[in-house]
């Protein structure tokens, strides 16, 4: 079955749900509305002519910091050897999509991953919690407007290259190059919490208390 036939088949049953279709793209896709997605997914999986038994990939998408989030379902049929891509776009602030976990079991963890990294909520998922990040991580890392949290349980999260600030060079003939030998160490670490070390320590305490 080619993508156009698949589209017609869907069109016959879910005419109102289909928003866009592009059969000339690299991966031909059909964009549907999120509201009745569970029915569409069940139809795609169970219809004997379509028989999309295998969900190759479920991928969260962020189309830009001001636009919508999306989910891309890449489907493949082992029996019929055809493929189609289903796209769903959802609002950034209120991202809710019906879960297809009961249709394809592999969607279980992939939906958890999309929730973890994009903050897309899958309604009806029985176990929707973070899977890769820790449970108490803040924010949705793969969104384009994500800003990494500064402290996690008192540990600094963004990598800080302290060594750039160091000054002492000396020649080390053993290694053949000019190699660091440190005299002034990490500022604020050894000499008590001064300067920039001071406010960071305060912040971390606040975080752990809160």
């Amino acid at each position, binding site marked *: 079955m080619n993508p156009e036939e698949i589209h017609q088949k869907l069109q016959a049953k879910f005419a109102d749900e289909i928003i866009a279709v592009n059969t000339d793209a690299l991966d031909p896709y059909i964009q549907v509305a999120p509201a009745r997605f569970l029915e569409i997914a069940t139809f795609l999986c169970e219809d004997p002519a379509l028989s999309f038994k295998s969900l190759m990939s479920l991928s969260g998408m962020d189309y830009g910091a001001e636009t919508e989030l999306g989910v891309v379902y890449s489907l493949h049929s082992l029996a019929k050897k055809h493929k189609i891509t289903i796209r769903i776009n959802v609002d950034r602030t209120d991202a809710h999509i019906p879960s297809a976990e009961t249709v394809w079991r592999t969607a279980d963890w992939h939906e958890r991953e999309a929730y973890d990294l994009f903050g897309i909520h899958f309604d009806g998922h029985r176990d929707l919690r973070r899977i890769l990040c820790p449970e108490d991580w803040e924010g949705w890392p793969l969104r384009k407007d994500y800003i990494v949290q500064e402290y996690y349980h008192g540990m600094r999260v963004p990598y800080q290259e302290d*060594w*750039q600030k*160091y*000054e*002492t*060079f000396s*020649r080390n003939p053993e*290694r053949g*190059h*000019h*190699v*660091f*030998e*440190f005299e002034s160490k990490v500022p604020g670490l050894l000499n008590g919490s001064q300067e920039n070390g001071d406010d960071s320590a305060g912040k971390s305490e606040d975080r752990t208390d809160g």
Partner: protein
Amino acid sequence: MGNYFNNIFRAISTIAVGMAETWKAMFRPPITLQYPNERWQLPVNARGILFNNVDDCIGCFKCARICPVQCIYIDTVKALPDEDLGKASMGNPIRQHLVRFDIDMFKCCYCDFCTTVCPTECLYMTEEYENGVFSRENGIYHFSKYSPPEAMALRRREQEETMTKALAKEAALAAKKKAAAQKGKETAEA
């Protein structure tokens, strides 16, 4: 019952076959090496610790830009017009002082991108792979041939240059403005 004894027989016979193989293996020469004393010979292109031959380095920043983990840090100071820093061995003229060329070997992912883009082939990977050091700072390699005071002097020179240039520009701008104002006045008077 027959199945029971059959199982025992098959277990014993297949173990005997396996044991014969392991027995043969006993008389083969060992393939292991006594590591610190004996070592494998590494191939020509083996990836070890990075080394930069600074005499050939022209400070083009290509390696720093392509590094996926950003572990190469370069600072350069432009040479004065009358200064001649010579040429690299492949003929590329050197136009800047390389006041800093640091490689953080702990961040390095040994991907070999930097050595492939290097135009003068001065940056290459050595066969040295034992990179264990007792403190983190010793894993950061400095290749600049300028000592810290020299590098500092060069940097200051560049700073002063830019400052004088900016001052001169400002002065020129002010003079221009003044002249324009003067001219305007004159035309108004006329």
